[in-house]
Every structure is written in structure tokens, then in C-alpha cells.
């Protein structure tokens, strides 16, 4: 099988699984998850084959794997869609296929496969546990998810969207995958649709990302209009980019800048950047943490991936001196989000929410990196982050799952299994989870040298510093400090110290289907950093070649220069990472309850009140506008009002016609009048109707004679 054919086939198994499960096997849990996991495995194998073939190619950057078919007729030409695997695509495919496969596997355990059916479980609500009798005494154990099959169907569709996005060679199919993931996130966040909070969160996620998507669609339309194509390789040629970069558009920007900005707004929505970040924390309403991980670790990466894809467009008018308008906006939003989200994360107590805000913050890192032109660094951080953030989410899911055991054991359902202040000391109960979580946390914090996060984060900081973007550098450094701080806070509160509740004491390690993915991901969270160690790094530099930079960098026509090594960003990374971790441990090691937490600042705890502000500024006015202005005032009031005037108006006109014209003039004068005249005349005339034949004959003769005479004298004689 050629590599191109294989690439075409990669997205197919999950979507086939989706249809199979929805249409046929949704009654059978075992069959459904076999199909789902099997499909994910097939795609995983395919991706791996493609990936290894890709790294075997010498000049993949110039000659990527690509193939296209005709899809849409447009006037005299065709719009073609196809697949493309270039170095950055291959790298993305690598981590995407691994994480997706891990998710499938993990879901089997997380959704309690093999457990009994719950006592009061209903579809649309999380399982509440089942009572079983064992050796004569009753015991409550976790119950299986009532919509188990459906979950795997959604996962399949989601995986399809992600693969489609990665392998597509043009913006349109990228957008298709993008939106399919949007739908899946809607479906998965609202998976327990019976909970009003989940339902509203789903709608919120869909709508917020749709704000971005709409702009992105506009950007795509713009790009298509301006260049006549949407295929990456056709747009990213020197001539096309030059034309785009030199054509002025509106608002004093170049066409390429404006298009890039529009496309970027899509990313802002999808990757939950400020100001469209509000949906992501609420998305934790989904079946934790699998779907949360989907949004946080995979789908949101798609946003960054899109920016990486359009990087040539973003930097088309960038001369290397002073950021363009679009790049400044991108850099600003990224950096601001990184810091902004990190501050909120500090004050969150829900184990998933911390991670959610951490994700927003880390994505801000990548966006900021792209904004300052650090292409490779962003891609690098994207991949390392995907690994360790997936690890953290799965780990937190494992923790929650363990805590739920405790909750079921004590039967006290008031205890929130996600609140970190209900935990503590879990390192003894859940050792695998603890160690893998620790690795993930350290990677997130950028623990020096060992973890992948250090290398990627360091590269971003080095880039920012090296190109003289001081504001970005400082902001990101502060954010990195906060990151390390809240990560350590999380680890401390969750795993260290003594259990703070009865439930935490009865927490249990999770089954192998859940821990295996943790171990696999932990492996990558550590080792993946080593493929991108800068060449001039003290001591370690050059031990392994900076393969990542070479490989991914070759995607661009103009090979990016690796930034000069400088000790200042390195020191900065070291300080913020270690300092943050240390302070986190220092502050929280003795905190016993939420009351002792000094950082529970209302402003931070309430996420700067963004939800309330948006609700006040947009949601409520929109509904008010829709209902009162558009529907009631405009449609029912003005337009229908005018229409309803036609009724009485016509009737009034009609009765006027009747009363003043029809009745007096037409009826009486013309109608009755002519009748009267005829009647009178007939009355007079009827006298000659004697009924006597001879008189008739006489009259006829007289007439005949008169006419004959007249004819004779006046016609024939003349």
C-alpha cells in the first residue's frame, strides 16, 4: 500500500466505528468498545507506519506525501481536497495517534466496564453506583455508564475529526475536521445531558467556539477569494504569499495579515484563548476526565496546529524587524492568556479546573511563541504539552475515580470527589497514579533537564529573549512561575500529607486499563523533550542531535534559524520552575482546609467575573434583542402591524365603496334606475302586445312596407 493511500485510510476506521456503533451495536457494550478501541488501534498503526516512513524520507519538507481528488465543481474549475503529510503533520500525527489510542483504552476502565448495572442509573446522568451482595454483606461498587456504547461512538467521531484535521491538505477539510470536533465536544460535554450544568456548558462551548469558527470561515472564504485555492502547498508558494503580503486590505492591514487574523480568531475560540476562553473550564462538566482531556489536550491543540499550519501566511509580510499588526495581536493574546489563566488556576480547588486553566495558559504560550515567529518552539511545546497534559488529565481522572470509590464506600455523596481539599495523602493509596502525575506535573512546571516541558518551554523563552521581545519574555516567565506554583499546590494538596477526609482514606488504585495509558504517556512526557535539545546547550547540547528542529523546521520553505544560546533565558527558566515548585510546596504543605488558603481571592476564584460579564454584555442582550426587538417589536409589531392594517384598511375602503358608490350610485341610480326605466317603458309598450295575430301581422307588414319603401327610394333609386 502506498503511503498516500494509507494516509487516506487513517481517518476512516474511527468514523466507521461511529456509524457501526450508532446503527448496529449500541446494545452491546463489549462489541461497541471492541469496535471503538479496534478502530483507534488501526488508525494508530496506520499513523505510526506513516510517521516512520515520513522520518525516513530525506526531503520530506520539499516533497511531502500528498494526494488529492476533485470534490467541488466551481465554475470552470474544480475544488480539490486531499491529504498531506509534511514534517509538521507527521509530528502531529505521532502524538495525536498515541493520545487518541490511549484515550480509547482508558475510557474502558473509566466508564466502569465490567461493573454491574447501577441501582438507579438513568441515561443522561452519571452512574451512581450499584449495590452488590458478597459473602452475605452488601457493598456499593461503581456502576457501569448507562450510555457506554454511545460514548465510544462519540469518541470515534471525535478521532475522525482530529485525524481529518491533521491529514488534510487544505483549509476547508481542516475546517471540516475542526467543526466535527466542535460537534463532538458539544456532545461529550453534554454527555450527561440530564444535568442542567452539563447541558448549558455544552451549549456554551459550542457557541463560544462558533464565534471563532464564523470568523475562521470568513477568513477561509477570504483566502479562497484572494488566491483561488485553499490548498496549503499552493498558497504557501513564494509568489502567492508575496501577492498577499503586498495587497493592501482594510483597516490598514495587508491581505495576508487580515486573513491570518481572521483565521486566528478561529483558533482563539478553539484553543480557548482570552477573550473566548470561558467555555473550557465549564467543559469539565463532561465525563471526567476523558472528554475533558479530549478538549484540553487534543482538540485545543488543533487550534494551535491551525496557526502552525498557516504560519507562512501569518508571517508573509514579516520582514524580521518589528512584528506586524497581526503578529502583535497574536503574541499579545497568547502572552496575556498565559498569564491571565495561570492566575486563575492558582485559586481553583477543582482538580480538573486547575488543569483546564493550566491548559489555557500553556496554549497561550504556544500562541505567543507563534506570534513572535518561533515556529519550531511552538510546535515542540505543542507536542510535549499534549503528552504531559494528557497524562495529567488522565491522572486526575484516575484520582477522581479513586475518590469515587471512597465516596461509594462511605456513602456520603455530599463529598465532591473532585475537590482537592477533600483529598490528601493519596500517594500511598494510588502509587502509580501518584508517580505518573508527578512526572506530568513536573513536566508542566518545566522541571529542568529531565522533563520534556523544560526543553520546549525553555525554547520559547529563549526565542522571545533572543528576538528581543521583552514584554513577551517577562510575561511568559511570570506565567511559568505561576504554573510551577499551582502545579505543586495541586500535587501537594492531592497526594502529599495525610488524608483530609474519610473518603480519601478509602480511595483505591484504578484498573490496568487506566494506569497503562498513564505509564505510556509518562514515558513520552519525559523522553520526548530529548529530541529537541538545543545544540549549544551546556553539557547536554550535541549529545543527541536537535532532530526536532531539523525535521519540523524543514516544513517551511525558509528554514528557520535556531536561536543563539543565551544563559539568561536558561537561568530564568530554572529559577521560575524550581522557585514555583518550591513555593508551592512550602505554602501548601501544611494547609489543612480551604479556610487556610490565602489565595482564595474572590476575583481569581470567580475567574475575573468573565462569565457574568459576558452574560450581562452578550447573552442576555442577545436574547432580549431577539425576543423583544426582532420578534415582538419588528415582526409582530411593525411588519405584522402594517400587514394587519391592510385588513381593516381594505375593509374600510370596501365599505366606503359600498356605502358611497355601490349603494347610491350603482345600485340605486344605475341598477335600480335602469330597471325602473325599463319597467315603465315596458309597461307602456305592453299595450301593443294584444295577442292578436292579425294585428301582429299588420304591424309587421307596415314595417315591411316602410322599410321596403325606404330602401327603394333611398338605396336602390339613388
Amino acid at each position, binding site marked *: 500500500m502506498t503511503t498516500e493511500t494509507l494516509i487516506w485510510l487513517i481517518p476512516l476506521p474511527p468514523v466507521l466505528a461511529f456509524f457501526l456503533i450508532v446503527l448496529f451495536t449500541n446494545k452491546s457494550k463489549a462489541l461497541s468498545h471492541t469496535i471503538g478501541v479496534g478502530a483507534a488501534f488501526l488508525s494508530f498503526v496506520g499513523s505510526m507506519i506513516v510517521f516512520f516512513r515520513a522520518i525516513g524520507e530525506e526531503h520530506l519538507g520539499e516533497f511531502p506525501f500528498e494526494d488529492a481528488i476533485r470534490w467541488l465543481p466551481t465554475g470552470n474549475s474544480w475544488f480539490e481536497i486531499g491529504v498531506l503529510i509534511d514534517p509538521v503533520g507527521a509530528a502531529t500525527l505521532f502524538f495525536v495517534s498515541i493520545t487518541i489510542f490511549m484515550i480509547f483504552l482508558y475510557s474502558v476502565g473509566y466508564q466502569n466496564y465490567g461493573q454491574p448495572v447501577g441501582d438507579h442509573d438513568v441515561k443522561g446522568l452519571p452512574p451512581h453506583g450499584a449495590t452488590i451482595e458478597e459473602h452475605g454483606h452488601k457493598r456499593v461498587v461503581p456502576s457501569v455508564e448507562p450510555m457506554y456504547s454511545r460514548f465510544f461512538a462519540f469518541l470515534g467521531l471525535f478521532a475522525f475529526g482530529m485525524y481529518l484535521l491533521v491529514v488534510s491538505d487544505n483549509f476547508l477539510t481542516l475546517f471540516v475536521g475542526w467543526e466535527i470536533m466542535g460537534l463532538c465536544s458539544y456532545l461529550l460535554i453534554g454527555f450527561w445531558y440530564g444535568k442542567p450544568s452539563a447541558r448549558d456548558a455544552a*451549549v456554551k462551548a459550542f457557541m463560544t467556539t462558533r464565534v471563532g469558527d464564523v470568523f475562521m470561515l470568513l477568513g477561509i472564504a477570504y483566502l479562497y477569494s484572494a488566491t*483561488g485555492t485553499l490548498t496549503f502547498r499552493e498558497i504557501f508558494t513564494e509568489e502567492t504569499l508575496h501577492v498577499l503580503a503586498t495587497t493592501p486590505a482594510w483597516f490598514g492591514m495587508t491581505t495576508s495579515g487580515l486573513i491570518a487574523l481572521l483565521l486566528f480568531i478561529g483558533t482563539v475560540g478553539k484553543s480557548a484563548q482570552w477573550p473566548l476562553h470561558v467555555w473550557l473550564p465549564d467543559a469539565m462538566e463532561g465525563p471526567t476526565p476523558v472528554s475533558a482531556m479530549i478538549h484540553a489536550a487534543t482538540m485545543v491543540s488543533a487550534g494551535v496546529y491551525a496557526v502552525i499550519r498557516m504560519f507562512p501566511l501569518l508571517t508573509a509580510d514579516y520582514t524580521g524587524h518589528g512584528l506586524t499588526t497581526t503578529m502583535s495581536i497574536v503574541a499579545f493574546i497568547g502572552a496575556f492568556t498565559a498569564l491571565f489563566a495561570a492566575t486563575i488556576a492558582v485559586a481553583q480547588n477543582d482538580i480538573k479546573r486547575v488543569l483546564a486553566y493550566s491548559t489555557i495558559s500553556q496554549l497561550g504560550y504556544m500562541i505567543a511563541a507563534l506570534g513572535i515567529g518561533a515556529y519550531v518552539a511552538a510546535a515542540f511545546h505543542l507536542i510535549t504539552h499534549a503528552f504531559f497534559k494528557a497524562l495529567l488529565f488522565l491522572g486526575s481522572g484516575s484520582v477522581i475515580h479513586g475518590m469515587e470509590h471512597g465516596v461509594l464506600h462511605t456513602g456520603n455523596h455530599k463529598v465532591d470527589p473532585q475537590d482537592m481539599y477533600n483529598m490528601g495523602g493519596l500517594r500511598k493509596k494510588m502509587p502509580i497514579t501518584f508517580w505518573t502525575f508527578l512526572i506530568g506535573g513536573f513536566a508542566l512546571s518545566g522541571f529542568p533537564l529531565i522533563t520534556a516541558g523544560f526543553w520546549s518551554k525553555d525554547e520559547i523563552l529563549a526565542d522571545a529573549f533572543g528576538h528581543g521581545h521583552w514584554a513577551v519574555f517577562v510575561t511568559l516567565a511570570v506565567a511559568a512561575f505561576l504554573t510551577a506554583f499551582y502545579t505543586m499546590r495541586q500535587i501537594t494538596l492531592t497526594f502529599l500529607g495525610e488524608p483530609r477526609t474519610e473518603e480519601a482514606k478509602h480511595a483505591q488504585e484504578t484498573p490496568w486499563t487506566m494506569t497503562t495509558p498513564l505509564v505510556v504517556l509518562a514515558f513520552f512526557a519525559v523522553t520526548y523533550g530529548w529530541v529537541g535539545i538545543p545544540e549549544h546547550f551546556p553539557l547536554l547540547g550535541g549529545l543527541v542531535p536537535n532532530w526536532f528542529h531539523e525535521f519540523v523546521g524543514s516544513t517551511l520553505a525558509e528554514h528557520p534559524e535556531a536561536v543563539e544560546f543565551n544563559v539568561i533565558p536558561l537561568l530564568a527558566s530554572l529559577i521560575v520552575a524550581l522557585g514555583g515548585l518550591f513555593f508551592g510546596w512550602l505554602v501548601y504543605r501544611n494547609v489543612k482546609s480551604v479556610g487556610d488558603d490565602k489565595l482564595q481571592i474572590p476575583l481569581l476564584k470567580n475567574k475575573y467575573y468573565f462569565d457574568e460579564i459576558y452574560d450581562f454584555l452578550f447573552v442576555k442582550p442577545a436574547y432580549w434583542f431577539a425576543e423583544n426587538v426582532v420578534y415582538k417589536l419588528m415582526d409582530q409589531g411593525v411588519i405584522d402591524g402594517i400587514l394587519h392594517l391592510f385588513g381593516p384598511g381594505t375593509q374600510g375602503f370596501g365599505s366606503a365603496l359600498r356605502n358611497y358608490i355601490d349603494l347610491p350610485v350603482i345600485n340605486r341610480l344605475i341598477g335600480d334606475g335602469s330597471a325602473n326605466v325599463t319597467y315603465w317603458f315596458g309597461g307602456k309598450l305592453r299595450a301593443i302586445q294584444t295577442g292578436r295575430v292579425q294585428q301582429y301581422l299588420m304591424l309587421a307588414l307596415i314595417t315591411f312596407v316602410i322599410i321596403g319603401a325606404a330602401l327603394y327610394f333611398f338605396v336602390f333609386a339613388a
Partner: protein
Amino acid sequence: MDFIATHLLSLILFFPALTGTAMLFLPGDEKTLHKWYALVASLVPFTLSLFAWFNFRASQSGYQFEEQYIWYEAIGSSLHLGVDGLSLSMVLLTTLLTPLAILASFSINEKTRSYMMLFLFLETGMLGVFMSIDLLIFFVFWEVGLVPMYFLINQWGSANRNYASMKFMIYTMGGSLGLLLAVQLLGVLFQTYDLQVITEQWSAYTAPIAGIPAGTFKAVAFWAFVIAFAVKVPLWPFHTWLPDAHTEAPTAGSMILAGVLLKLGAYGFLRLILPLYPAEAKYFAGALAFLAVAAIVFGAFGSYAQTDFKRLVAYSSVNHMGFVVLGIAAAAFAVGTEDARIALNGAILQMFNHGLSAAGMFFLVGVIYERTHTRNLEDFGGLFPLVPVYGGILIFTSMASLGLPGLNGFISEFLVVRGSFGVGVNSVPVMAVYTSVALLGLLFTGAYILKGIKKVLHGPMNEHWSSASGEHKLTEINAREIVVMAPLMALILWIGLYPAWILDVINRAVVMLF
């Protein structure tokens, strides 16, 4: 076989009316017989139009399967039928939706025979508009379609049906008054009603008419045409008949109303206005685009404000049909360019797509209304566990309506946006603004669709519908209803994944026409 081949269009066109008339001879109380008879009778035109579809040579320009019969020789009007890629896709849509609508109305048990007869007559009326290439015949069928629909709403509608049917009838008839006058004018001017002849001569006509400069006269006639079609489409601010009519009509009536009748207006724009008035259309395209954008945005807002499920879906038609007109307006600005063709491709495909998804949505609303006898969104809630299959279908169809990529609505909306924005970028900047504003409507499309799903399927279950006593127990969608939805869903998916099969025909027609 030869007869069928040479009289294909008139067979498709008159078969429903003839079989409808023949229903008079069926026994009056055999309801089941009436239903099956009507279903079979409506499947025949569908089969024939499939035959036409596969025998249609897309690469050949002009009308195909042409037929011409003497009708009204004295004034130069003849029964001239013919289809091109544009009308053939509409014919296919009509003949597809009618059997589905009839199948959807198998639950009607009141005056079944008249109901089915009206449906068959309605089909003939609609098909006639799409097939005729004679202005007078066009107008005749245009009006013929109104009558059965009026009675369908008036006799089988819900509570407020008298008001709605009257509004529908008077509004549409009032709108087409100007059209009638303008058509008469053209007929008098050229001594013929043949569309091809008139198109050739009228667009180049410059002599003053009755002392009025041709330009002024044409502008007036242009608006007469536009208003007639705008009412039908419906374009803002002529849209208020639609929510009433759609809401009050019986389920199958709404399906046909949204699925086909609205397309008549858009078809009029494409078949008559653009070819007959290229200069005027270009001159007034800005105004048209404005109205279209207003329809998109206000339609979405209007829909978002509803608490009645069916009314919500009805308003969504305003929103979606706005895209059709936006595409047409964009094309009018720049006839002959690639952008215009893409916009028209999108507009025509959007007509087809909206036919599928709107019909499906109305049917689904009807399914739940039949079981609960309420359409108030507040009365539902959390029904998903009770009706999982129905829920899945509803979400699927809603997503098509929302324009989710991978389903049909996206393709057409994207093409329209691409085309009109392209016109904005390449020739008329104001279109870029309009397109951007239209996207605001696209955003709110999401809002109202999600609102519908949220209120019906999601959330805490309304115990009323799951009561153990079984009195109000909501039952799952049945096999017949699934059969109605299945072809729609298949087409929605098929067009969404691989639109070329239909878009190629449309595209070739567009390239040849404009």
C-alpha cells in the same frame, strides 16, 4: 417506452394531477387505500424524474426533454416544458419530497381522500413552475400551487389556521399582482410568452414604452418581479406570513412549504430575474443583498426568540433562504465571474439542501407534536432517554440545518459565503461587509438550533412524559417515520461528503446560464 421518453416532462407534471382526479372514483371510506394509492401515485413521478436525472446530459446547453403544445395561441402562449440543470434538481427535490410528505401524513385520518388529492394537485402546481419555459404558464402554475396549500392549512391545520391560511393566500397573491402585470407587459410587447425569446429581446430592449424611458420601466417591472418572489422566498421584511403558515400547517404541509414552495421564489430569481434584468439586478443588487442579510440576521434572531418548536424551525427557513438570496445578489453584482458562479452554485445547492433539512426538521417537530400535542419548548425537556432514536435523528438533522461541515448545509453555505465574499474582495467591497454581517446570522443559527435541542432533548427529564401510568408515555419514533427520514438523512450525508454528483449538474447549468 418511447412514449415515456418523448413525453417525460408532461408525464411527470400531469401524472399527479390525473391520479389525484382519479381518486374521486375510489370508495370514499377506504382511508388506507387512499393513503397507499397517493403514495404510489407520487412515487411514479419520482421514478420518472430519476429517469430524467440519469438521462440528463449535463454538458449540453439549453433545455432538455423539451415539449411544446398549443395552449393559448391567440396571445402567443404555449405549454412549453423543458428542464436544465437548475430546474432538474428542483424537480428532483419536489418529486422526492412529495412521496415523503404523503408517507408522513399516513397518520391523517380526517377527510383522507381530499387531503391526498390536494397533495397530488400541489405537486403538479410546483412541478409546473419548475418545468415551464413560458412566462404565462409559469405564472399559472405559480398561482395553482397556492390553492391546494391554502386548503391544506385551512382544513388540516392547527388552532390558528384560519388566520394563517388567509395570510398566506392573500400575501402571496398580493405579492404576485405586480408579477402578473409585468408578465402581461412582456407578452404584449413581444407577442409571445416564450421565455427564451423574451429573455433575448427584453434584456436588450431600449425603446421607450408608452412614453416612459425603458430604463424606468424596466426598473419598475424588475421590482414587480422581485416583490413577487421575495414574498415567496421569503425575504425580510416580507417574511411574516411564513412563521404563521408553517406553524399552523399540518406536518406534511410544512414539509412541502419549507421544502419546495419557498424554492419557487428563489427559482424565480434565478430563472427570471437574473436573465431578464441583468442590468437592473446589478444596479439593485446592493439592496437585494441588504434584504438578504437582514433576512439572515433577523431570521436567526427571530428563531432564537421562539418558545414554539415549530415556529423556531419556521423562522430558521427565513434565515437559510437568506443565504440563497445573498448568493443571488452577489452573483448579480458580478455576472460571469468565477465568484458569481460559486455564489450561484451555493445558492442553488442551498435551495436543495434546505429542502432536505427543513423538511426533515418539520417532520421531526410533527412527530413529537403528534405524540405530545404540544409544541411549547417549555413543556419538553430531557426526552432523550425516552426516545433515543428520535433524539439521534433530531440532532443529526439539526446539525445539517446548523451547517455542520460534513453535512450538506455547510457546503452550500460555504459556497455562498465564498462567492459573495469573493465578489466583495474582487469587485464590490460592500459585499464583503454584507457577508461579514451575514456570518453573524450564522452564529445565531447555532444559537437557535442548540436551543431547540437543549429544550427538547437535554436537561432534567420532564416526568410528565415518562409517567408510569403510561397515559402520556412518550413513544419512540416508529418505522414509518424512520422510513420518511431515512432518504433525507442519506442525502444530507451524501451531499455533505461528496457534493459533486449534484453540484456538477448545477455548476454546468450555472456556467451555461450566467
